[in-house]
């Protein structure tokens, strides 16, 4: 049978390329106190940050691997084989012209400068441990919006930074948040002043280029009263045979009446362990919304959360996880209601292909003394072929009588008959599968901003092309 090579098949590996390493700063393999000092020296950390890191290092060493929510696959991570800091310098450029050629070409291949011109209010592009490019549109900067890397944030804006840094997600939240707190580098610091509504998204792109490496960016976003922001992150890495670790911490704060939307479209290669802690605090009448799309990686463990701290605060997690052969997407959401009349909504859609495995873990907590709180949870799983596996572990603790929760779950299959039906209409097996998947996520994706639904659709197509091989 003659097999056509479609352009998609080539494009599918859009993230799968790497240039030779040219790092001038390399903390070497393994993690000791010396590694922490190396990182602090290079980054010229203030003393309080160095101390914060060293404390976190101790916490990391003393904490066991997560067992409660963990997969055995975590044992495959050998912390001593990982390089914890790699960079070609600590200062991001404001202009693509000044970014070193190889790195610039990397981001051009990923389409970042083009997207920036088209629809973004600002971009930060991180390459291994440091941002190589960071820029915000002039008009947005003039509104008082701060959009810089975490290092610049903690040095130049300590009065805002220190107030929230490590407060939404304490160092000891879990072993990987402690690891991130010890060796963090890169990530964004954003502050939106009261009443400012940032019209276009700010975007960060996290690129891993090196092998045996761990990327530990740290992001802190504060939307002051009545402000609005959409932030978007994208990620890719080349395919290596060795395990690569990505372990970020993302803290969001939405002050009274603010609206903060955080969108992830992750497309890690199949050797990446993606262990990320993400949480937001929503104050009175504020809204924190996570849109979380996980495609790729070997193991993803990520449960974005919202603490609804003020009255009428709203929290939302809309997530899509696609687990291809050999992958495990262990994702979910945490909703902590901490004030009256707070509302949370979780919609999770997972797709398992081949031997891919998708797990949903949810936690909804509404204490007894609260009134008129609402949660809605919907978990839908789609299985493409019978060896796929899906598990749902919703944990809902609702005390008190004035609160309402609604929980729905479903599992469906893409049957061989459905695929045959679509093939009979002229679609390839991959096109048929991606159409079914798109149909499955459609009502959710419709709620995403246009650019990202287009991007997501494309990634699903690429993934399906790959899975039928």
């Amino acid at each position: 049978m003659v097999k056509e090579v479609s352009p998609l098949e080539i494009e599918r590996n859009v993230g799968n390329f790497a240039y030779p390493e040219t790092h001038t700063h390399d903390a070497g393999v393994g993690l000791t106190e010396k590694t922490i000092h190396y990182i602090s020296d290079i980054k010229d950390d203030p003393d309080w940050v160095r101390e914060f890191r060293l404390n976190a290092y101790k916490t990391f060493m003393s904490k066991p691997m997560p067992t409660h929510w963990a997969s055995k696959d975590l044992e495959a991570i050998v912390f001593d084989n990982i390089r914890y800091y790699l960079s070609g310098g600590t200062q991001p450029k404001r202009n693509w012209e000044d970014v070193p050629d190889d790195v610039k070409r990397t981001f051009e291949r990923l389409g970042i400068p083009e997207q920036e011109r088209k629809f973004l209010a600002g971009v930060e592009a991180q390459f291994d441990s440091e941002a190589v490019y960071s820029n915000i549109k002039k008009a947005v900067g003039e509104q008082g919006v701060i959009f810089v890397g975490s290092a610049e944030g903690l040095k130049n804006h300590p009065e805002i930074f220190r107030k929230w840094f490590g407060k939404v997600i304490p160092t000891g939240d879990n072993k990987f948040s402690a690891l991130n707190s010890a060796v963090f580098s890169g990530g964004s610091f954003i502050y939106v002043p009261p009443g400012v509504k940032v019209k276009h998204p700010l975007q960060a792109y996290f690129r891993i280029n090196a092998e045996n490496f761990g990327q530990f960016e740290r992001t802190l976003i504060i939307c002051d009263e009545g402000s609005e922001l959409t932030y978007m992150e994208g990620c890719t890495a080349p395919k290596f045979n060795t395990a690569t670790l990505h372990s970020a911490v993302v803290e969001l704060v939405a002050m009274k009446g603010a609206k903060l939307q955080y969108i992830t479209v992750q497309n890690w290669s199949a050797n990446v362990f993606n262990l990320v802690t993400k949480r937001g605090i929503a104050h009175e009448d504020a809204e924190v919304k996570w849109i979380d799309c996980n495609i790729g990686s070997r193991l993803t463990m990520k449960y974005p959360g919202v603490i609804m701290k003020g009255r009428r605060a709203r929290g939302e997690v809309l997530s899509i996880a696609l687990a291809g052969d050999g992958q495990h997407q262990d994702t979910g959401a945490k909703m902590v209601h901490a004030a009256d009349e707070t509302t949370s909504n979780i919609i999770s859609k997972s797709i398992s292909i081949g031997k891919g495995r998708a797990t949903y873990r949810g936690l909804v907590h509404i204490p007894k003394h609260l009134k008129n709180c609402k949660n809605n949870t919907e978990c839908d799983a789609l299985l493409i072929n019978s060896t796929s596996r899906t598990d749902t572990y919703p944990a809902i603790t609702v005390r008190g009588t004035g609160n309402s929760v609604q929980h729905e779950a479903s599992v469906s299959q893409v049957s061989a008959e459905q695929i045959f039906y679509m093939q009979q209409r002229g679609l390839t097996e991959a096109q048929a599968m991606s159409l079914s998947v798109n149909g499955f996520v459609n009502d959710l994706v419709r709620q995403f901003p246009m650019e990202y639904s287009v991007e997501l659709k494309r990634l699903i197509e690429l993934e399906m092309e790959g899975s039928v091989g």
Partner: protein
Amino acid sequence: MNKLSITNLRVSIADQEIIRGLSLAVPKGEIHAIMGPNGSGKSTLAKVLTGHPDYKITAGEVLMDGENILALAPDERARKGLFLAFQYPSEIPGVTIANFLRAAVQARLPEGEELEATDYYAKLYEKMDLLEMDRSFTSRSVNEGFSGGEKKRNEILQLAMLQPKYAVLDETDSGLDIDALKVVAHGVNSLRGPNLGVILITHYQRLLDYIIPDHVHVMVQGRIVRSGGKELALELEEKGYESYETVKDEIGEPAMA
């Protein structure tokens, strides 16, 4: 050359032979009805022609305009111009008819060519009008929650949109009331012409009052046991398939039956 020709086809599933040496040639421009009792292998034939992976072909060949298609994937056969209106069409949740058909039409364009949306919708609406389908259909998920009749109408809509060279219609009449049957027959008749060959599978003669076939074949136990003109259908209507049951006995039951 200009025909769909099946020669001495033998097909089995789970070690049971279902098609047992079937030959049939359908030239473009003709409509051939295949009639036969339940379980005689009509749907199996339809699925084997279009490449369903469950069946094992043990002998014979199928040529479409001279090309052996049995080695081709189902989607390749489809794009070359072979269409099946399913007896039991699948549901595709979340995928609208408009998007589904658009993907199918797009799949037939040369690489790099984008489907023109306005032309596409113009054609879609024209075909829907022909089949007396409400416009709101386009935004419904494919076959999801459709009545039996709506599903069949949707199959014919796809037939009209994709303009194949050969179409197999598998019991398109079942589940249709008389009005719907007339509409569907009108749709098929309007597609009739020198560029389309049709295999019309049915076990009632009723449909053949509205779509007049050029030839009628009787299929029993995986074989064509008799062929004739359209009057054969009337004879079957009168006498039923019983007379062929004896033929069946002559053929002999499969060993395991």
